[in-house]
Protein backbone atom coordinates (compact mmCIF):
# COMPACT_ATOMS: atom_id res chain seq x y z
CA UNK A 1 0.00 0.00 0.00
CA UNK A 2 2.82 2.38 0.87
CA UNK A 3 4.39 1.66 -2.49
CA UNK A 4 1.14 2.64 -4.22
CA UNK A 5 1.09 5.85 -2.20
CA UNK A 6 4.61 6.71 -3.39
CA UNK A 7 3.67 5.74 -6.91
CA UNK A 8 0.84 8.23 -6.82
CA UNK A 9 3.18 10.94 -5.57
CA UNK A 10 5.62 10.10 -8.32
CA UNK A 11 2.84 10.37 -10.88
CA UNK A 12 1.91 13.81 -9.62
CA UNK A 13 5.48 15.13 -9.70
CA UNK A 14 6.16 13.33 -12.96
CA UNK A 15 3.21 14.88 -14.74
CA UNK A 16 4.46 18.34 -13.75
CA UNK A 17 7.90 17.52 -15.13
CA UNK A 18 6.29 16.13 -18.27
CA UNK A 19 4.40 19.40 -18.89
CA UNK A 20 7.57 21.44 -18.56
CA UNK A 21 9.63 18.94 -20.55
CA UNK A 22 7.20 19.38 -23.45
CA UNK A 23 8.11 23.06 -23.70
CA UNK A 24 11.81 22.21 -23.85
CA UNK A 25 11.25 19.45 -26.30
CA UNK A 26 9.17 21.49 -28.73
CA UNK A 27 11.52 24.46 -28.77
CA UNK A 28 14.52 22.19 -29.18
CA UNK A 29 12.78 20.30 -31.94
CA UNK A 30 12.13 23.43 -33.93
CA UNK A 31 15.23 25.63 -33.59
CA UNK A 32 17.66 23.26 -31.85
CA UNK A 33 17.93 25.66 -28.92
CA UNK A 34 18.25 24.46 -25.38
CA UNK A 35 16.02 27.11 -23.87
CA UNK A 36 17.58 27.62 -20.45
CA UNK A 37 15.10 30.40 -19.75
CA UNK A 38 12.17 27.95 -19.80
CA UNK A 39 12.51 27.13 -16.10
CA UNK A 40 12.65 30.79 -15.18
CA UNK A 41 9.47 31.52 -17.11
CA UNK A 42 7.84 29.06 -14.71
CA UNK A 43 9.23 30.99 -11.76
CA UNK A 44 7.77 34.22 -13.14
CA UNK A 45 4.41 32.49 -13.65
CA UNK A 46 4.49 31.40 -10.00
CA UNK A 47 5.13 34.93 -8.79
CA UNK A 48 2.35 36.37 -10.97
CA UNK A 49 -0.16 33.93 -9.50
CA UNK A 50 1.13 34.64 -6.00
CA UNK A 51 0.71 38.39 -6.37
CA UNK A 52 -2.73 38.25 -7.96
CA UNK A 53 -4.04 35.91 -5.29
CA UNK A 54 -2.38 38.11 -2.68
CA UNK A 55 -4.36 41.06 -4.04
CA UNK A 56 -7.56 39.17 -3.25
CA UNK A 57 -8.61 38.45 -6.82
CA UNK A 58 -10.22 35.10 -7.56
CA UNK A 59 -7.81 32.20 -8.14
CA UNK A 60 -9.32 31.34 -11.54
CA UNK A 61 -8.31 34.75 -12.88
CA UNK A 62 -4.90 34.37 -11.26
CA UNK A 63 -4.32 31.08 -13.06
CA UNK A 64 -5.38 32.50 -16.42
CA UNK A 65 -3.34 35.67 -16.00
CA UNK A 66 -0.24 33.78 -14.99
CA UNK A 67 -0.51 31.57 -18.09
CA UNK A 68 -1.01 34.66 -20.27
CA UNK A 69 1.95 36.32 -18.54
CA UNK A 70 4.16 33.32 -19.27
CA UNK A 71 3.14 33.31 -22.94
CA UNK A 72 3.80 37.04 -23.36
CA UNK A 73 7.15 36.77 -21.60
CA UNK A 74 8.26 33.85 -23.77
CA UNK A 75 7.24 35.61 -26.98
CA UNK A 76 9.11 38.72 -25.88
CA UNK A 77 12.25 36.75 -25.07
CA UNK A 78 12.05 35.03 -28.43
CA UNK A 79 11.67 38.33 -30.31
CA UNK A 80 14.34 40.26 -28.41
CA UNK A 81 17.00 37.73 -27.60
CA UNK A 82 16.71 34.70 -29.88
CA UNK A 83 15.44 36.04 -33.19
CA UNK A 84 18.50 38.21 -33.98
CA UNK A 85 20.64 35.10 -33.55
CA UNK A 86 18.81 32.78 -35.91
CA UNK A 87 21.78 32.56 -38.27
CA UNK A 88 24.43 32.68 -35.52
CA UNK A 89 26.44 29.68 -34.35
CA UNK A 90 24.62 27.40 -31.91
CA UNK A 91 27.05 28.24 -29.12
CA UNK A 92 26.06 31.95 -29.24
CA UNK A 93 22.39 31.02 -29.02
CA UNK A 94 23.05 28.79 -26.04
CA UNK A 95 25.03 31.47 -24.22
CA UNK A 96 22.23 33.96 -24.89
CA UNK A 97 19.72 31.54 -23.42
CA UNK A 98 21.86 31.21 -20.30
CA UNK A 99 22.06 35.01 -20.17
CA UNK A 100 18.26 35.34 -20.39
CA UNK A 101 17.82 32.75 -17.65
CA UNK A 102 20.20 34.60 -15.36
CA UNK A 103 18.62 37.91 -16.17
CA UNK A 104 15.16 36.68 -15.17
CA UNK A 105 16.48 35.07 -12.00
CA UNK A 106 18.32 38.16 -10.85
CA UNK A 107 15.58 40.60 -11.76
CA UNK A 108 13.14 38.44 -9.80
CA UNK A 109 15.53 38.53 -6.89
CA UNK A 110 15.69 42.32 -7.06
CA UNK A 111 11.93 42.71 -7.19
CA UNK A 112 10.74 39.99 -4.81
CA UNK A 113 13.84 39.27 -2.70
CA UNK A 114 15.85 36.07 -2.41
CA UNK A 115 13.77 34.46 0.34
CA UNK A 116 11.20 31.84 -0.61
CA UNK A 117 7.57 32.92 -0.29
CA UNK A 118 4.92 30.44 0.63
CA UNK A 119 2.36 29.81 -2.06
CA UNK A 120 -1.35 29.89 -1.07
CA UNK A 121 -2.07 26.53 -2.67
CA UNK A 122 -5.30 25.91 -0.78
CA UNK A 123 -7.00 28.88 -2.45
CA UNK A 124 -6.33 27.39 -5.88
CA UNK A 125 -7.02 23.75 -5.11
CA UNK A 126 -8.94 23.11 -1.88
CA UNK A 127 -7.19 20.51 0.23
CA UNK A 128 -9.66 17.67 0.12
CA UNK A 129 -8.51 14.12 0.71
CA UNK A 130 -10.29 11.10 -0.62
CA UNK A 131 -9.75 7.66 0.73
CA UNK A 132 -10.13 4.80 -1.69
CA UNK A 133 -9.41 1.32 -0.34
CA UNK A 134 -7.01 2.64 2.24
CA UNK A 135 -5.22 4.82 -0.32
CA UNK A 136 -5.12 8.53 0.49
CA UNK A 137 -5.59 10.66 -2.60
CA UNK A 138 -5.71 14.44 -2.44
CA UNK A 139 -7.76 16.47 -4.88
CA UNK A 140 -4.56 18.25 -5.90
CA UNK A 141 -2.99 14.96 -7.00
CA UNK A 142 -6.02 14.03 -9.11
CA UNK A 143 -6.24 17.50 -10.63
CA UNK A 144 -2.52 17.64 -11.43
CA UNK A 145 -2.55 14.33 -13.23
CA UNK A 146 -5.81 15.06 -15.07
CA UNK A 147 -4.76 18.54 -16.15
CA UNK A 148 -1.37 17.29 -17.32
CA UNK A 149 -2.79 14.43 -19.33
CA UNK A 150 -5.51 16.65 -20.82
CA UNK A 151 -2.92 19.26 -21.85
CA UNK A 152 -0.88 16.62 -23.57
CA UNK A 153 -3.87 15.25 -25.45
CA UNK A 154 -4.77 18.76 -26.63
CA UNK A 155 -1.17 19.37 -27.63
CA UNK A 156 -0.98 16.13 -29.60
CA UNK A 157 -4.17 17.03 -31.49
CA UNK A 158 -2.80 20.52 -32.12
CA UNK A 159 0.46 19.23 -33.55
CA UNK A 160 -0.99 16.34 -35.53
CA UNK A 161 -4.31 17.69 -36.83
CA UNK A 162 -4.18 21.47 -37.30
CA UNK A 163 -2.60 23.61 -40.01
CA UNK A 164 -0.30 25.30 -37.52
CA UNK A 165 0.80 21.94 -36.19
CA UNK A 166 1.65 20.84 -39.70
CA UNK A 167 3.70 24.02 -40.13
CA UNK A 168 5.49 23.32 -36.87
CA UNK A 169 6.39 19.83 -37.95
CA UNK A 170 7.56 21.11 -41.32
CA UNK A 171 9.79 23.80 -39.82
CA UNK A 172 11.39 21.35 -37.43
CA UNK A 173 12.02 18.98 -40.34
CA UNK A 174 13.74 21.52 -42.57
CA UNK A 175 13.52 25.24 -41.97
CA UNK A 176 14.72 26.28 -45.40
CA UNK A 177 12.41 23.99 -47.31
CA UNK A 178 9.47 25.01 -45.11
CA UNK A 179 10.09 28.64 -45.98
CA UNK A 180 10.14 27.79 -49.67
CA UNK A 181 6.77 26.08 -49.29
CA UNK A 182 5.32 29.39 -48.12
CA UNK A 183 5.27 28.72 -44.38
CA UNK A 184 5.81 31.79 -42.23
CA UNK A 185 8.76 30.44 -40.30
CA UNK A 186 9.04 33.30 -37.81
CA UNK A 187 5.38 33.13 -36.88
CA UNK A 188 5.63 29.36 -36.48
CA UNK A 189 8.62 29.63 -34.18
CA UNK A 190 6.93 32.29 -32.07
CA UNK A 191 3.83 30.12 -31.90
CA UNK A 192 5.93 27.19 -30.69
CA UNK A 193 7.43 29.33 -27.94
CA UNK A 194 3.94 30.50 -26.98
CA UNK A 195 2.61 26.93 -26.73
CA UNK A 196 5.62 25.86 -24.71
CA UNK A 197 5.15 28.81 -22.38
CA UNK A 198 1.44 28.12 -21.95
CA UNK A 199 2.30 24.59 -20.83
CA UNK A 200 4.96 26.10 -18.57
CA UNK A 201 2.32 28.41 -17.09
CA UNK A 202 0.08 25.46 -16.26
CA UNK A 203 3.13 23.64 -14.93
CA UNK A 204 4.02 26.68 -12.82
CA UNK A 205 0.68 26.65 -11.00
CA UNK A 206 0.76 22.89 -10.47
CA UNK A 207 4.38 22.93 -9.28
CA UNK A 208 3.87 25.85 -6.91
CA UNK A 209 0.88 24.01 -5.43
CA UNK A 210 3.07 20.95 -4.95
CA UNK A 211 6.08 22.58 -3.27
CA UNK A 212 4.27 24.99 -2.08
CA UNK A 213 6.57 28.01 -2.31
CA UNK A 214 8.17 30.32 -4.89
CA UNK A 215 11.69 31.69 -4.91
CA UNK A 216 13.84 33.28 -7.64
CA UNK A 217 15.83 30.07 -8.13
CA UNK A 218 12.74 27.85 -8.38
CA UNK A 219 13.11 27.67 -12.14
CA UNK A 220 16.72 26.64 -12.30
CA UNK A 221 16.59 23.15 -10.84
CA UNK A 222 13.09 22.54 -12.16
CA UNK A 223 14.27 23.51 -15.63
CA UNK A 224 17.23 21.15 -15.45
CA UNK A 225 15.06 18.28 -14.26
CA UNK A 226 12.50 18.89 -16.98
CA UNK A 227 15.30 19.00 -19.49
CA UNK A 228 16.59 15.66 -18.19
CA UNK A 229 13.07 14.33 -18.65
CA UNK A 230 12.98 15.63 -22.22
CA UNK A 231 16.35 14.05 -23.03
CA UNK A 232 15.36 10.79 -21.38
CA UNK A 233 12.21 10.56 -23.47
CA UNK A 234 13.92 11.64 -26.66
CA UNK A 235 14.08 15.32 -27.38
CA UNK A 236 11.59 16.56 -29.95
CA UNK A 237 9.08 13.82 -29.22
CA UNK A 238 5.82 14.56 -27.37
CA UNK A 239 5.04 11.09 -26.00
CA UNK A 240 8.73 10.82 -25.15
CA UNK A 241 8.59 13.93 -22.98
CA UNK A 242 5.59 12.51 -21.09
CA UNK A 243 7.32 9.20 -20.54
CA UNK A 244 10.55 10.90 -19.48
CA UNK A 245 8.71 13.20 -17.09
CA UNK A 246 6.96 10.31 -15.35
CA UNK A 247 10.24 8.37 -15.15
CA UNK A 248 12.11 11.25 -13.52
CA UNK A 249 9.25 11.97 -11.11
CA UNK A 250 9.11 8.31 -10.06
CA UNK A 251 12.90 8.11 -9.68
CA UNK A 252 12.92 11.18 -7.47
CA UNK A 253 10.11 9.95 -5.24
CA UNK A 254 11.77 6.53 -5.02
CA UNK A 255 15.09 8.04 -3.88
CA UNK A 256 13.28 10.17 -1.31
CA UNK A 257 11.31 7.17 -0.07
CA UNK A 258 14.57 5.30 0.49
CA UNK A 259 15.63 8.10 2.84
CA UNK A 260 18.39 9.49 0.62
CA UNK A 261 16.78 12.85 0.01
CA UNK A 262 20.08 14.77 0.05
CA UNK A 263 21.15 12.75 -2.98
CA UNK A 264 17.95 13.33 -5.01
CA UNK A 265 19.42 15.94 -7.32
CA UNK A 266 22.58 13.91 -7.84
CA UNK A 267 20.46 10.94 -8.93
CA UNK A 268 18.73 13.09 -11.54
CA UNK A 269 22.09 14.20 -12.93
CA UNK A 270 23.37 10.63 -12.93
CA UNK A 271 20.29 9.56 -14.91
CA UNK A 272 21.00 12.37 -17.35
CA UNK A 273 24.63 11.38 -17.79
CA UNK A 274 23.86 7.70 -18.21
CA UNK A 275 21.15 8.41 -20.78
CA UNK A 276 23.34 10.79 -22.75
CA UNK A 277 26.16 8.28 -22.84
CA UNK A 278 24.18 5.12 -23.50
CA UNK A 279 21.34 6.30 -25.70
CA UNK A 280 21.59 10.02 -26.50
CA UNK A 281 18.42 9.84 -28.58
CA UNK A 282 16.36 8.80 -25.54
CA UNK A 283 13.40 6.42 -25.54
CA UNK A 284 11.64 7.80 -28.58
CA UNK A 285 13.95 10.30 -30.25
CA UNK A 286 15.28 10.03 -33.76
CA UNK A 287 18.98 10.37 -34.36
CA UNK A 288 20.40 13.30 -36.24
CA UNK A 289 23.34 12.68 -38.50
CA UNK A 290 25.83 15.46 -38.90
CA UNK A 291 26.46 16.43 -42.50
CA UNK A 292 29.80 17.67 -43.77
Amino acid at each position, binding site marked *: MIILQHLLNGLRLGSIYALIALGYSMVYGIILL*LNFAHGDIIMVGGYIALIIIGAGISPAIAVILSIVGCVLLACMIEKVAYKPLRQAPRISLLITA*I*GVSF*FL*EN*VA*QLIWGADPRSFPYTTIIPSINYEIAGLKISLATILTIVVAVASMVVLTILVQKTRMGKAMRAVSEDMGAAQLMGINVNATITFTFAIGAALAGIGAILYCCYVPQVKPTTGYLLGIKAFVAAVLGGIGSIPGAMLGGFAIGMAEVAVNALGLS*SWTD*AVVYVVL*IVVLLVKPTGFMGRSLNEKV
Partner: protein
Amino acid sequence: MKKSFRFSVPTRYIINFGLTALFIICGTLIVNGGAFKRATNAIILQIGIYIILTVSLNMVTGYLGQLPLGHAGFMAVGAYTGAILWKATAAMPCWVSILLGLIAAGLMAAVFGVLIGIPALRLKGDYLAIITLGFGEIIRICIINLAGITGGTPGLLNIPKYSSFFVVFTAAAITCYVIHTIMHSRHGRAILAIRENEIAADACGINLTYYKVFTFAVSAFFAGVAGALFAGFQGSLFPKSFDFMASINILVMVVLGGMGSMLGSVVAATVLTALPLVLQGLSEYRMVIYSLLLIIVMIFKPSGLMGKYDFSLTGIIEDAINGRLFRKKRKEGAENE
Protein backbone atom coordinates in the same frame (compact mmCIF):
# COMPACT_ATOMS: atom_id res chain seq x y z
CA MET B 1 63.23 48.84 -48.78
CA LYS B 2 64.77 48.88 -45.31
CA LYS B 3 64.43 45.64 -43.43
CA SER B 4 62.29 46.19 -40.38
CA PHE B 5 63.72 45.51 -36.97
CA ARG B 6 63.01 42.17 -35.27
CA PHE B 7 64.06 40.77 -31.92
CA SER B 8 65.63 37.34 -31.91
CA VAL B 9 63.61 34.65 -30.16
CA PRO B 10 65.81 34.41 -27.01
CA THR B 11 65.69 38.18 -26.64
CA ARG B 12 61.90 38.05 -26.80
CA TYR B 13 61.83 35.51 -23.99
CA ILE B 14 64.19 37.63 -21.88
CA ILE B 15 62.14 40.79 -22.43
CA ASN B 16 58.84 39.07 -21.59
CA PHE B 17 60.26 37.30 -18.57
CA GLY B 18 61.92 40.48 -17.32
CA LEU B 19 58.76 42.56 -17.62
CA THR B 20 56.64 39.89 -15.92
CA ALA B 21 59.16 39.54 -13.09
CA LEU B 22 59.29 43.31 -12.72
CA PHE B 23 55.48 43.46 -12.52
CA ILE B 24 55.30 40.74 -9.88
CA ILE B 25 58.12 42.18 -7.74
CA CYS B 26 56.77 45.74 -7.93
CA GLY B 27 53.26 44.49 -7.22
CA THR B 28 54.45 42.51 -4.20
CA LEU B 29 56.33 45.51 -2.85
CA ILE B 30 53.39 47.85 -3.37
CA VAL B 31 50.78 45.48 -1.93
CA ASN B 32 52.92 44.37 1.01
CA GLY B 33 53.93 47.99 1.61
CA GLY B 34 50.31 48.65 2.50
CA ALA B 35 49.61 51.08 -0.31
CA PHE B 36 45.97 49.97 -0.64
CA LYS B 37 43.08 49.35 1.66
CA ARG B 38 42.34 45.76 2.67
CA ALA B 39 39.30 45.59 0.42
CA THR B 40 41.37 46.69 -2.55
CA ASN B 41 44.01 44.08 -1.79
CA ALA B 42 41.32 41.41 -1.68
CA ILE B 43 40.02 42.49 -5.09
CA ILE B 44 43.54 42.43 -6.53
CA LEU B 45 44.03 38.84 -5.36
CA GLN B 46 40.62 37.88 -6.77
CA ILE B 47 41.62 39.39 -10.10
CA GLY B 48 44.64 37.08 -10.18
CA ILE B 49 42.52 34.05 -9.37
CA TYR B 50 39.90 34.94 -11.97
CA ILE B 51 42.59 35.49 -14.59
CA ILE B 52 43.70 31.88 -14.10
CA LEU B 53 40.10 30.61 -14.25
CA THR B 54 39.21 32.64 -17.31
CA VAL B 55 42.34 31.85 -19.27
CA SER B 56 41.92 28.16 -18.51
CA LEU B 57 38.24 28.12 -19.50
CA ASN B 58 39.11 30.08 -22.62
CA MET B 59 41.31 27.20 -23.65
CA VAL B 60 38.28 24.92 -23.92
CA THR B 61 35.67 27.47 -24.98
CA GLY B 62 37.75 29.73 -27.19
CA TYR B 63 40.41 27.48 -28.64
CA LEU B 64 38.71 24.09 -28.68
CA GLY B 65 35.24 25.50 -29.38
CA GLN B 66 33.32 23.45 -26.80
CA LEU B 67 31.09 24.87 -24.11
CA PRO B 68 31.56 23.24 -20.71
CA LEU B 69 29.38 24.56 -17.90
CA GLY B 70 31.16 22.82 -15.05
CA HIS B 71 34.32 24.83 -14.62
CA ALA B 72 33.44 25.61 -11.02
CA GLY B 73 33.38 21.85 -10.39
CA PHE B 74 37.08 21.53 -11.25
CA MET B 75 37.76 24.61 -9.20
CA ALA B 76 36.00 22.95 -6.26
CA VAL B 77 38.06 19.76 -6.60
CA GLY B 78 41.25 21.81 -6.59
CA ALA B 79 40.09 24.02 -3.75
CA TYR B 80 39.25 21.15 -1.41
CA THR B 81 42.36 19.15 -2.36
CA GLY B 82 44.59 22.16 -1.77
CA ALA B 83 42.87 23.18 1.44
CA ILE B 84 42.96 19.69 3.00
CA LEU B 85 46.60 19.22 2.04
CA TRP B 86 47.54 22.64 3.38
CA LYS B 87 45.85 21.94 6.66
CA ALA B 88 47.68 18.61 6.90
CA THR B 89 51.08 20.05 6.03
CA ALA B 90 50.84 23.25 8.04
CA ALA B 91 53.92 22.20 10.00
CA MET B 92 56.12 22.11 6.90
CA PRO B 93 57.96 25.18 5.64
CA CYS B 94 55.43 27.36 3.94
CA TRP B 95 57.02 27.20 0.46
CA VAL B 96 57.02 23.43 0.34
CA SER B 97 53.46 23.35 1.55
CA ILE B 98 52.24 25.92 -0.98
CA LEU B 99 53.90 24.20 -3.92
CA LEU B 100 52.72 20.77 -2.84
CA GLY B 101 49.17 22.02 -2.37
CA LEU B 102 48.97 23.81 -5.70
CA ILE B 103 50.42 20.95 -7.70
CA ALA B 104 48.27 18.35 -5.96
CA ALA B 105 45.18 20.52 -6.49
CA GLY B 106 45.96 20.89 -10.16
CA LEU B 107 46.68 17.19 -10.65
CA MET B 108 43.55 16.12 -8.82
CA ALA B 109 41.43 18.46 -10.92
CA ALA B 110 43.16 17.21 -14.08
CA VAL B 111 42.34 13.62 -13.11
CA PHE B 112 38.71 14.64 -12.74
CA GLY B 113 39.03 16.48 -16.05
CA VAL B 114 40.11 13.28 -17.79
CA LEU B 115 37.49 11.17 -16.02
CA ILE B 116 34.71 13.58 -16.98
CA GLY B 117 36.20 14.50 -20.33
CA ILE B 118 36.36 11.00 -21.79
CA PRO B 119 32.61 10.37 -21.59
CA ALA B 120 31.50 14.00 -21.95
CA LEU B 121 33.52 14.80 -25.06
CA ARG B 122 31.78 12.08 -27.02
CA LEU B 123 28.88 14.50 -27.12
CA LYS B 124 28.66 17.81 -28.88
CA GLY B 125 27.32 21.29 -28.39
CA ASP B 126 24.32 21.52 -26.10
CA TYR B 127 24.65 17.98 -24.84
CA LEU B 128 28.25 18.57 -23.84
CA ALA B 129 27.21 21.74 -22.04
CA ILE B 130 24.46 19.98 -20.14
CA ILE B 131 26.52 16.90 -19.23
CA THR B 132 29.37 19.02 -17.83
CA LEU B 133 26.77 21.00 -15.90
CA GLY B 134 25.58 17.68 -14.51
CA PHE B 135 29.07 16.59 -13.51
CA GLY B 136 29.77 19.98 -11.91
CA GLU B 137 26.63 19.73 -9.82
CA ILE B 138 27.36 16.12 -8.84
CA ILE B 139 30.79 17.21 -7.57
CA ARG B 140 29.09 19.90 -5.49
CA ILE B 141 26.45 17.52 -4.10
CA CYS B 142 29.19 15.02 -3.21
CA ILE B 143 31.07 17.77 -1.35
CA ILE B 144 27.93 18.60 0.62
CA ASN B 145 27.25 14.96 1.48
CA LEU B 146 30.80 13.85 2.25
CA ALA B 147 30.87 16.09 5.29
CA GLY B 148 33.49 13.94 7.04
CA ILE B 149 36.18 15.02 4.60
CA THR B 150 34.97 18.32 3.25
CA GLY B 151 33.10 19.85 6.15
CA GLY B 152 29.81 19.77 4.21
CA THR B 153 27.52 22.78 4.18
CA PRO B 154 28.95 24.40 7.36
CA GLY B 155 32.20 24.64 5.45
CA LEU B 156 35.87 23.86 5.80
CA LEU B 157 37.45 26.43 8.08
CA ASN B 158 40.89 27.57 9.26
CA ILE B 159 42.69 27.03 5.99
CA PRO B 160 46.16 28.63 6.06
CA LYS B 161 46.00 31.89 4.09
CA TYR B 162 48.79 31.21 1.67
CA SER B 163 47.56 33.23 -1.31
CA SER B 164 49.77 36.29 -1.32
CA PHE B 165 50.12 38.63 -4.26
CA PHE B 166 53.37 36.93 -5.22
CA VAL B 167 51.91 33.42 -5.20
CA VAL B 168 48.71 34.32 -7.04
CA PHE B 169 50.27 36.36 -9.80
CA THR B 170 53.21 34.01 -10.30
CA ALA B 171 50.65 31.24 -10.79
CA ALA B 172 48.68 33.48 -13.17
CA ALA B 173 51.81 34.28 -15.21
CA ILE B 174 52.77 30.60 -15.39
CA THR B 175 49.22 29.71 -16.47
CA CYS B 176 49.27 32.25 -19.29
CA TYR B 177 52.76 31.16 -20.32
CA VAL B 178 51.96 27.45 -20.42
CA ILE B 179 48.69 27.87 -22.28
CA HIS B 180 50.25 30.34 -24.70
CA THR B 181 53.10 27.93 -25.38
CA ILE B 182 50.75 25.00 -25.90
CA MET B 183 48.63 27.04 -28.27
CA HIS B 184 51.64 28.01 -30.38
CA SER B 185 52.93 24.46 -30.70
CA ARG B 186 51.67 21.80 -33.10
CA HIS B 187 49.30 20.64 -30.37
CA GLY B 188 47.79 24.10 -30.32
CA ARG B 189 47.32 24.08 -34.06
CA ALA B 190 45.60 20.72 -33.79
CA ILE B 191 43.25 22.14 -31.14
CA LEU B 192 42.45 25.15 -33.35
CA ALA B 193 41.83 22.85 -36.30
CA ILE B 194 39.27 20.94 -34.23
CA ARG B 195 37.50 24.21 -33.45
CA GLU B 196 37.40 25.28 -37.09
CA ASN B 197 36.08 22.04 -38.47
CA GLU B 198 35.96 18.83 -36.55
CA ILE B 199 35.32 16.56 -39.49
CA ALA B 200 38.09 18.11 -41.60
CA ALA B 201 40.49 17.89 -38.66
CA ASP B 202 39.61 14.23 -38.23
CA ALA B 203 40.22 13.65 -41.93
CA CYS B 204 43.67 15.28 -41.58
CA GLY B 205 44.64 12.62 -39.06
CA ILE B 206 44.20 14.63 -35.87
CA ASN B 207 43.22 12.37 -32.99
CA LEU B 208 40.04 14.16 -31.90
CA THR B 209 39.48 12.33 -28.62
CA TYR B 210 43.10 12.67 -27.53
CA TYR B 211 43.27 16.40 -28.14
CA LYS B 212 39.86 17.12 -26.66
CA VAL B 213 40.65 15.22 -23.46
CA PHE B 214 44.12 16.79 -23.37
CA THR B 215 42.67 20.31 -23.61
CA PHE B 216 40.05 19.48 -21.04
CA ALA B 217 42.67 18.14 -18.62
CA VAL B 218 45.00 21.14 -18.99
CA SER B 219 42.06 23.47 -18.49
CA ALA B 220 40.94 21.51 -15.42
CA PHE B 221 44.50 21.51 -14.03
CA PHE B 222 44.66 25.29 -13.96
CA ALA B 223 41.09 25.58 -12.69
CA GLY B 224 42.20 23.34 -9.82
CA VAL B 225 45.21 25.55 -9.11
CA ALA B 226 42.93 28.59 -9.11
CA GLY B 227 40.61 26.75 -6.75
CA ALA B 228 43.43 26.10 -4.29
CA LEU B 229 44.45 29.76 -4.49
CA PHE B 230 40.83 30.66 -3.81
CA ALA B 231 40.91 28.46 -0.71
CA GLY B 232 44.13 30.09 0.45
CA PHE B 233 42.64 33.50 -0.22
CA GLN B 234 39.39 32.98 1.68
CA GLY B 235 40.66 30.84 4.52
CA SER B 236 37.39 28.91 4.42
CA LEU B 237 35.45 26.93 1.83
CA PHE B 238 31.72 26.47 1.34
CA PRO B 239 30.07 24.29 -1.32
CA LYS B 240 27.88 27.23 -2.28
CA SER B 241 30.88 29.03 -3.79
CA PHE B 242 31.06 26.42 -6.53
CA ASP B 243 27.50 26.30 -7.84
CA PHE B 244 26.31 26.85 -11.39
CA MET B 245 26.39 30.62 -10.83
CA ALA B 246 30.18 30.44 -10.36
CA SER B 247 30.65 28.59 -13.64
CA ILE B 248 28.56 31.18 -15.44
CA ASN B 249 30.56 33.98 -13.86
CA ILE B 250 33.72 32.62 -15.46
CA LEU B 251 31.93 32.01 -18.75
CA VAL B 252 30.73 35.63 -18.86
CA MET B 253 34.32 36.79 -18.58
CA VAL B 254 35.50 34.51 -21.38
CA VAL B 255 32.65 35.49 -23.69
CA LEU B 256 32.98 39.18 -22.96
CA GLY B 257 36.71 39.19 -23.55
CA GLY B 258 36.34 37.32 -26.78
CA MET B 259 36.38 33.57 -27.12
CA GLY B 260 39.85 32.65 -28.29
CA SER B 261 41.73 35.71 -27.07
CA MET B 262 43.96 35.34 -24.04
CA LEU B 263 44.36 39.09 -23.79
CA GLY B 264 40.58 39.42 -23.87
CA SER B 265 40.25 36.89 -21.06
CA VAL B 266 42.77 38.70 -18.88
CA VAL B 267 41.22 42.11 -19.54
CA ALA B 268 37.66 40.88 -18.97
CA ALA B 269 38.64 39.07 -15.76
CA THR B 270 40.34 42.22 -14.49
CA VAL B 271 37.57 44.62 -15.43
CA LEU B 272 34.64 42.50 -14.28
CA THR B 273 36.30 41.61 -10.97
CA ALA B 274 37.25 45.21 -10.31
CA LEU B 275 33.79 46.44 -11.31
CA PRO B 276 32.21 46.13 -7.84
CA LEU B 277 35.02 48.30 -6.49
CA VAL B 278 34.08 51.08 -8.89
CA LEU B 279 30.30 50.65 -8.75
CA GLN B 280 29.95 50.19 -5.03
CA GLY B 281 26.35 51.30 -4.89
CA LEU B 282 25.39 48.87 -7.61
CA SER B 283 26.52 45.63 -6.01
CA GLU B 284 23.01 44.16 -5.96
CA TYR B 285 22.61 44.90 -9.66
CA ARG B 286 25.88 43.19 -10.52
CA MET B 287 24.41 39.90 -11.67
CA VAL B 288 21.66 41.69 -13.62
CA ILE B 289 24.31 43.75 -15.40
CA TYR B 290 26.36 40.61 -16.07
CA SER B 291 23.46 38.77 -17.62
CA LEU B 292 22.42 41.75 -19.73
CA LEU B 293 26.02 42.16 -20.91
CA LEU B 294 26.07 38.51 -21.90
CA ILE B 295 22.91 38.87 -24.03
CA ILE B 296 23.93 42.18 -25.58
CA VAL B 297 27.43 41.01 -26.46
CA MET B 298 26.02 37.85 -28.05
CA ILE B 299 23.54 39.81 -30.17
CA PHE B 300 25.74 42.69 -31.29
CA LYS B 301 29.30 41.38 -31.13
CA PRO B 302 29.30 37.59 -30.78
CA SER B 303 33.07 37.48 -31.10
CA GLY B 304 33.47 39.41 -27.82
CA LEU B 305 35.27 42.68 -27.19
CA MET B 306 38.69 41.53 -28.36
CA GLY B 307 37.60 38.98 -30.93
CA LYS B 308 40.44 36.59 -31.51
CA TYR B 309 43.07 39.33 -31.21
CA ASP B 310 46.13 38.54 -29.13
CA PHE B 311 48.94 40.95 -28.58
CA SER B 312 52.62 40.41 -28.04
CA LEU B 313 54.60 42.76 -25.87
CA THR B 314 57.76 42.45 -27.92
CA GLY B 315 55.74 42.94 -31.07
CA ILE B 316 54.61 46.32 -29.79
CA ILE B 317 58.17 47.32 -28.89
CA GLU B 318 59.32 46.27 -32.35
CA ASP B 319 56.61 48.36 -33.94
CA ALA B 320 57.61 51.33 -31.80
CA ILE B 321 61.24 50.98 -32.87
CA ASN B 322 60.21 50.71 -36.50
CA GLY B 323 58.13 53.85 -36.04
CA ARG B 324 54.82 52.36 -37.12
CA LEU B 325 53.05 51.76 -33.87
CA PHE B 326 50.08 53.87 -34.85
CA ARG B 327 50.17 53.28 -38.55
CA LYS B 328 48.25 50.55 -40.22
CA LYS B 329 50.07 47.27 -40.49
CA ARG B 330 51.54 46.70 -43.91
CA LYS B 331 50.83 43.43 -45.60
CA GLU B 332 53.35 40.72 -44.81
CA GLY B 333 54.33 40.40 -48.46
CA ALA B 334 55.50 44.00 -48.65
CA GLU B 335 58.12 43.45 -45.98
CA ASN B 336 59.94 40.76 -47.91
CA GLU B 337 60.80 43.00 -50.85
